[in-house]
């Protein structure tokens, strides 16, 4: 643990000694007097929070709890499916965060007591905290599509919560094993869900792979909604690059998948049409991750209501919930928003620990998508909080221009690669 966490003053020491439950894990040494920030989840929100806290507020003692030994990103997972990246390219170690003085604990948080300010780990330890940043991501709602549970996902991958990378690798292997002329089926959920343009980038990257290696194949995208992010841009690109390989079926044309049969790879829609496909990617409806629901932080929507300036939970003071788990609409559930809002949450936690008001906030997002090789598109959003909501800045942001603009598309594909390198450095670097 870094020496900046040494004793700072008799008052804080006395307060800490009187107020703070001892840490059960002996390996987690704590400097007397430092305020303890406990970060739960080492994905985009959690890793960004831990890194930013160590840089901007070195007086914070930061512990990060994350079960995965290294983190596989969802972003650029679609490029793995397209054959443009390897799993190693999207896998990030926690060593750099350790070197910054973050105490990284590989375990699950199983319970949170917001009154006692403790978190219970699966391994048995109990960690006390002064403020928590909770960024546990999403849970897939098993059973929301009949027949789609965890066992079914071993046959029909979701590849939407990467975990240790098994799901993305499985979908890639199934695409590789498919015969030319096969149909790849996707089930796409209604709003809100993780990464609004993600399913459509995935369609694009699967088409990119099939066009090169299995050009007689088709993609059948069954969607539970009638409109999607960057729709015009995606559909222009699909037509230009992949001809009639992709069929997108909206809700109003019976696109909503309500039932699957994993053994026969059959996707059944609302009106009973059964589509048997060679490879199926099921992206089911989602909620905040289980720990957020178990801790009583989520409302009936399944997402966590938060203060729009500090991301402090409405239900449990002291716990700042960032990333996909909160109800941040109209902000998208994106890695960029998780990274950006995590910093505001940390700054707010630091301010509140000092008895100050959280700082002025402005939130920034850009989601790039690859439609093809050297063909990138983007959506930009700048958002500001009010006391009760988050509002997009009028006349700002928006999507790339439409039209035959090869230089624009090439530039944005290159920018996307630069974004990935930059943001993963800003989280795990």
């Amino acid at each position, binding site marked *: 643990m870094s020496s900046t966490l040494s004793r*700072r*003053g008799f*008052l*804080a020491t006395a*307060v800490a000694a*009187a*107020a703070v439950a001892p840490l059960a894990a002996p390996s987690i040494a704590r400097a007397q*007097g430092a*305020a303890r920030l406990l970060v739960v989840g080492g994905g985009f929100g959690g890793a960004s929070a831990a890194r*930013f806290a160590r*840089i*901007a*507020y*070195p*007086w914070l003692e930061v512990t990060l709890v994350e079960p995965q030994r290294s983190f596989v990103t969802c972003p650029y997972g679609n490029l793995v499916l397209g054959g443009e990246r390897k799993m190693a390219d999207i896998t990030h170690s926690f060593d750099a965060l350790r070197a910054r003085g973050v105490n990284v604990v590989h375990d699950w948080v199983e319970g949170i007591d917001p009154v006692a300010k403790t978190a219970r780990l699966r391994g048995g330890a109990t960690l006390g905290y*002064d403020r928590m940043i909770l960024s546990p991501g999403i849970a897939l709602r098993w059973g929301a599509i009949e027949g789609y549970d965890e066992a079914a996902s071993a046959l029909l991958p979701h590849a939407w919560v990467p975990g240790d990378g098994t799901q993305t690798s499985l979908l890639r292997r199934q695409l590789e094993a498919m015969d030319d002329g096969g149909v790849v089926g996707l089930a796409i959920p209604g709003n809100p869900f993780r990464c609004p343009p993600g399913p459509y980038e995935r369609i694009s990257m699967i088409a990119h792979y099939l066009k090169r290696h299995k050009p007689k194949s088709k993609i059948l995208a069954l969607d539970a909604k009638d409109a999607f992010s960057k729709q015009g841009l995606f559909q222009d690109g699909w037509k230009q690059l992949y001809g009639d390989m992709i069929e997108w079926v909206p809700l109003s044309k019976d696109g909503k998948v309500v039932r699957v049969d994993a053994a026969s790879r059959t996707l059944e829609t609302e009106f009973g049409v059964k589509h048997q496909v060679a490879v199926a990617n099921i992206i089911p409806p989602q909620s905040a991750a289980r720990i957020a629901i178990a801790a009583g932080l989520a409302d009936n929507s399944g997402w966590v209501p938060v203060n729009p300036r500090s991301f402090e939970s409405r239900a449990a*003071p*002291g716990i700042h919930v960032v990333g996909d788990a909160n109800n941040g609409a109209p902000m998208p559930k994106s890695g*960029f928003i998780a*990274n*950006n809002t995590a*910093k*505001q949450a940390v*700054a707010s936690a*630091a301010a*509140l*620990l*000092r*008895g*100050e008001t959280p*700082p*002025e*906030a*402005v*939130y*920034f997002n*850009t989601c790039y998508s690859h439609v093809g090789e050297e063909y990138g598109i*983007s959506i*930009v*959003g*700048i958002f500001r909080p009010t006391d009760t909501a988050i509002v997009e*800045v009028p*006349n*700002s*942001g928006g999507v*790339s221009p439409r039209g035959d603009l090869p230089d*624009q598309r090439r*530039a*944005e594909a*290159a*920018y996307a*690669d*630069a*974004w990935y*390198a*930059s*943001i993963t*450095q*800003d989280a795990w*670097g």
Partner: protein
Amino acid sequence: MRPAVLGLALALAFPAAAAAQAPLAAQGCLGCHGATGAGSAAIPGLSGRPAAELSAAMLAFRANERPGPIMGRIARGYTDAEIAAMAAHFAALPAGGSR
């Protein structure tokens, strides 16, 4: 321990910490312009460039007077004060970026 008391205690214990407040508006830039502001592959660096140059670029993007694949859409979300703060922040960093 009541939170207000803890907060007071910490405020007394860490008087220097207020100076560590990061310019949050500038944090958004780091998602693409390199985690240190030094640039990332095709995206140019910001750190170490004169504040006047950085603000002039942002203001021109915002006014639609400078073309670019994406910066106009971004610049239109920010106020004059935020643009000035971002420019000052990156101008004060070493050209290779920081931390």
